């Protein structure tokens, strides 16, 4: 039942969420998870929960699980190329073991 897979994690600005979800939907990945994220990075401190002006200073964390590492790298490259020059963001890969992988 268990299956090796790749998890791509992208932490970036909430204002990009709509555009990034378009990239994800156009990709071969079958789904993704979005969480509110806070913390501190090289650009500035991002709060989670307190009122933030128009989401300009809010972050999200996206997780995308795919069976194919190439797909994950391709998505990360697209996002990084388009946004990471001007927006804060980081992307990393994780090798994971998916249990009950009938949906992958």
């Amino acid at each position, binding site marked *: 039942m268990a299956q090796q897979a790749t998890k791509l994690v992208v932490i970036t600005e909430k*204002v990009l969420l709509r555009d990034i979800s378009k990239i994800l939907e156009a990709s071969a990945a079958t789904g993704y998870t979005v969480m509110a994220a806070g913390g501190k990075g090289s650009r500035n401190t991002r709060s989670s*929960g*307190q*009122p933030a*002006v*128009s989401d*300009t200073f809010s972050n999200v964390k996206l997780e995308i699980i795919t069976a194919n590492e190439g797909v994950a790298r391709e998505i990360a490259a697209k996002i990084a190329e388009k*946004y990471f020059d*001007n*927006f804060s963001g980081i992307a990393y890969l994780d090798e994971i073991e998916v249990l009950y992988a009938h949906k992958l």
Partner: protein
Amino acid sequence: MEALLEFFTRFLTQFQSPTLAFLIGGILIAALGTKLEIPDAIYKFVVFMLLMRVGLDGGMSIREANLADMLLPAFFAILIGIVIVLIGRFTLALLPSVRTEDGIATAGLFGAVSGSTLAAAIVVMESEGISYEHWAPALYPFMDIPALVMAIVLANLYLRHRDGTSEKVRIWPIVKESLQGSALSALLLGIAIGLFTQPEKVFEGFYDPLFKGLLSVLMLVMGMEAYTRLNELRRVAHWYAVYALIAPLVHGLIAFGLGYIAHILTGFSPGGVVLLAVIAGSSSDISGPPTLRAGIPTANPSAYVGASTSIGTPVAIAIGIPLYIGLAQAVFGI
């Protein structure tokens, strides 16, 4: 001399209004390191409630209004939106240690309109018993959208000239992005519902009674937010602080002058003139930043959001609103 003294007395009494007290209180407790937190969801809901109330009120009164009266103030609103950005382009953006695109983005944000400042002015005016055309808040998009479009176009022209790229600036996505912003959506929906349906009961029973109370919560949040964003402003050139201190009042006074012309030509009410000055003096806090972020991605949001939220908005509310009301009382004798 006596008129001047009377103006200052009236100006000082404005400082005792609860709207300003909550704003200043918010700044104060944030400076003292309060652990008080108003959740983000409540803040967003309060903004929706206030703009829906202002929109419904506006929509219901447009039904009876003579639309021709709106033409000149609407034209002035567009003009002010554009002029504010040009002023910023040729003052702030040319200063040393200010990156040109950051300066233009800041000017765009100061040209755009803040729904919360507008709501604060309405509450202060209603408690003072100053009447105004209830369609006047509908001038909001006429100033907001041209200012944001102008800033994004100017910034992109500058960047294209500097980098030699030839990417065309498309206007429609900017307009669409502004209209989809949470503040403007709520306001325009309110106007449409007020105009085409009979929302009197829900307005009188729900939106209107809650208006003042919710505004006090919003003012508290904005005060706390202003203090927090000072940190952002500290990272950028000091010129932003100077601009944020002076610009709201200059913009408001320009609008007051144009509003006065509209008063003479078409009988625009003194209350309407004050509201036009308030929306010109306000800088967008909710819908402007994401539009600018998308339109001028290389501009540093710490510069424009910091300048607007930490200094621009408190100045526009705490000094601007009493100033224009005092001025209207002195000029129009209301």
